[in-house]
Each structure stands twice: as C-alpha cells, then as structure tokens.
C-alpha cells in the first residue's frame, strides 16, 4: 500500500520536475530540475526492490549533473549563462514528439499484456545483477569498457592542440614536459 502511494508520488514528482526543465529560465535551475527528476526515478527503482541500481542512479546522476552544469554554463553563449534562457529548440516540433512518445508509452502500459513473474526474486538482487552482468556478459562489458576508454583518449588527443613535440621538443629529448599547467608531481 505504502509503496503504491510512494510510486505514484515519485512518478508525479518526476514528471513535474521533468516539465520544469522546460519552464525554468536559468541553466543552473534547469540542470537541477533534471537532477530532481532523475532522483525521483531512482526512488521508483528503489521501490522495485533494486537497492543497488537505485542508489547507483542517485550517485551517478548527482555527479553527472554537477559536471554537466559546469560545462553547460561554461559554454553558454551569454556570459556565464547568467542571462535568462529557454531550453527550447524547434518548440512546436519537440512538443509534438514528446507528447506523442508520452501518449504511446502510456497507452502501451494499458494495452500490452503484462507478463507473469517467472521464478522468484533473488535473495540478493545486487549479487544476481553482478552475476548476470559479469558472468555471461563479461566479454561484452570488457569490450565496451575498452571501446569507451579508447574513445575518450582518442577524442582528447584529437581535441588538444598540443602534441608530444610541443611537450618534449622537436627531438623528443627534453627531460621535463613543457606543460602550461605544471601539476603537482614535479616533473
């Protein structure tokens, strides 16, 4: 009973916070409205009995939104993102698409036959999750991790204007790299 009430409350609040993303006019407020929406969604996941996933969503989303707000404000076209702004692009088109997706998903809830539960819930859902991710899918996860990491490294290498010849000289013989910010290791 309590969890049913909470599920509705979290769901409604997640929607309201999500809608606020498009109503507020400050980049910082918009980001944290989005964060609030994610946190209420995490509440729903916790109600489903998936403790680890729910808490990890909180952990990841807070970090992610804080980093996002820094970058968003940094790259805003008005100084420091302090001018009022709107999150809209192609207002009418995006409203139509968003409304359509919402209606389709909601209709799906009522129209599709829900599957019966097969088997029982595991005693330790964290362990079950870890085993299903890291047991059968270990190769996939490792490939994915390597690919993501390689992407990060290569995009940084492509994006930076300084190469190893700037850092270690034309013959790469310099003892210390010539970096604009020296760092704390004392190289």
């Amino acid at each position: 009973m309590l969890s049913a009430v909470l599920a509705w409350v979290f769901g409604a609040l997640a929607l309201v916070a999500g809608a606020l993303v498009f109503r507020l006019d400050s980049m910082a407020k918009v980001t944290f409205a989005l964060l609030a929406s994610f946190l209420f969604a995490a509440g729903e996941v916790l109600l489903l009995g998936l403790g680890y996933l729910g808490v990890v969503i909180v952990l990841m989303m807070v970090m992610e939104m804080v980093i996002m707000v820094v970058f968003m404000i940094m790259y805003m076209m008005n100084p420091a993102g302090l001018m009022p702004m709107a999150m809209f692009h192609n207002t009418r088109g995006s409203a139509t698409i968003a409304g359509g997706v919402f209606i389709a998903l909601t209709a799906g809830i009522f129209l599709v036959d829900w599957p019966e539960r097969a088997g029982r819930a595991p005693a330790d859902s964290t362990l079950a999750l870890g085993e299903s991710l890291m047991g059968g899918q270990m190769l996939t996860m490792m490939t994915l991790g390597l690919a993501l990491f390689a992407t990060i490294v290569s995009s940084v290498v492509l994006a930076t204007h300084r190469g190893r010849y700037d850092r270690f000289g034309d013959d790469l013989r310099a003892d210390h790299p010539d970096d604009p910010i020296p760092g704390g290791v004392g190289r």
Partner: protein
Amino acid sequence: MTEIPLWSLAVLPAVLGVATIVAIAFDVALSARAGGRAASLTEAVVVPLREAVRLLVGQRRVTTAADRVLWRTGVVTVPLAALMAALVLPLGGVAVADLDVGVVWFNAMEILAWAAVWLAGWGPNSALSLVGGYRFVAQGLAYELPHMFALITAATAAGTLRVGGIVEAQSGVWFVVWMPVAFVVYLLSTAAMAFQAPFDAPIGRDLAGGVAGELSGVDRLVLQGGRWLLLVVAVAMSVPLFLGGGHGPLLPPWLWTVLKTAAVLAAVLWLRRKFPTVRMDRFAEIAWVVLIPLTILQALAVAALVLTW
C-alpha cells in the same frame, strides 16, 4: 548487526552534533596551542558555541540577483548529506539502517556534497563564491576516484556491500593491516570531501571566503556546521571500514567504536594543520598520477589475496 527502531533517527543528529562540538572544541584548543598558549577547557567549548549563537541571531546578507532557491538548497544539503550518510554508520553492534548496499549508499550521500557546495557557490551571484564552487568540483573529481577505490577495496575483502558485514569480516585482522594504502587515501579524501584544510581551497582566503564568502547569519552556521559534520561522519566511517568497527578486547563494542573514532578524528585534526592549503592544479595531478594507480594496485592485491585464500 541489528537495526535500532525509527526513534533513533531523532537521536542520530544529537549524537553527531555532540561529536561535532567536541571535534570543534579540540580544534580550537589546537589553534590556541599553535598560537603559543594553552586554551582552557571552557574557552575551547565556549568559543564555538558563542560563534554559533552569534551566527544564529546574525542578519542574512542579501546579494543582487541571487538565485535564492538554489543557494538555500545548496547550503542545507551540506549537513543533510552528512546526516543521511550517517544512517549506515554502526555504533558497536547497532546502526539506524544496515542497508544491503550500505557502502554505495554512503558514497552516494557524500557525493550530494558536490552538488551542495557548487550550488552554495552559484547561488549568491558572486564571482568569488562561484570560483569556490568550481574549485570544489575540481577537487571532487580528483578525490572521488581514489576514494571509491578505497571503499571498493574494503567491500571486496569482506565480500559484501553491507557495513555490518564489513565489520564482521574484521573479527580477526583489521583491514588497515593489509590495505594501508586504501586507509590513508580514505582519510585524505575525508578532509577533501569536507573541504577542511589542507583541502580548503574552495573557501580559501584568496577568494575572500569562496563558497562561504557571501554567507552570513544562520546560512553560514548551517554550511560551516555541515562541513564539520561531514568530516566527523566521514572519519567515523573509517572505523567500520578499516579499523575493525566495534572489535576489541575487554570494552563493549560501542565504546571501542567511540574510542577509535575519537583517535582517528584527533589524528586528522592534528595532521591537517601541518600542511598548507593544496592548490587544485597540483592536487589534481597527484590524484590522477599517484593516488589512482596506488589505490588500483591496492585493490588488485586485496582481490588476489581474497581469491587465493
């Protein structure tokens, strides 16, 4: 580990509050000693309390075009994050909540401080406080990964994310014995998390107080109190993670927990004034080039030991 009933939710802030006042009093005494004189017990206790009362009745500063909603949210979230992290903190054999995923919960609540401090810096619409907020995010990016590896190492050794389980796993040997690197890195990151010296660049004097610069009255009290609370909670967590929790001879478990926490807290408070404020550009490189590889090696060594034993 047993969970105590819901009324303990009301007791927890009181207990932590007392611990925090004791910690601040000890810090005042250390400051007096550093100034070449001995602080009396009354001075050590009265000075922080008087400061708290002064802030309580003090007027709030108003800044132009402040983002009040986010500002207040940020300030209030600092102590709230500490209190919610403390829910899984065991005192001897009891905790308010011994969650299945206690370590992850603790970590998630600590990370709320990222958002909180950045918001407190953004809110007043002041350049220096915003720079302070940015500094904290940079500091967070640098300390959080080593911190997470330290947490994971303890959880790996115990084979559980439950804080109670981690304490039980140390009934023989304390984790600090075979994971000293993780322990030291954990303590480093507790000071960084609570932006206490030497990681106090976000509220640095060179920024005229940074994040706390525009705060006055009760807002300032909440943020500064929350900082101390964060430090106390994070340091207290090192006891169940690495120092065997309530395990020890003769004395009851709760007393061992209190004694160990007090000892680590005193050591952290004493050590933190031995170092100058760390600059973020320096600490970021140290974290990425030294601390992360060290903690990964530590985690690898522990994982290998767990698998072979």
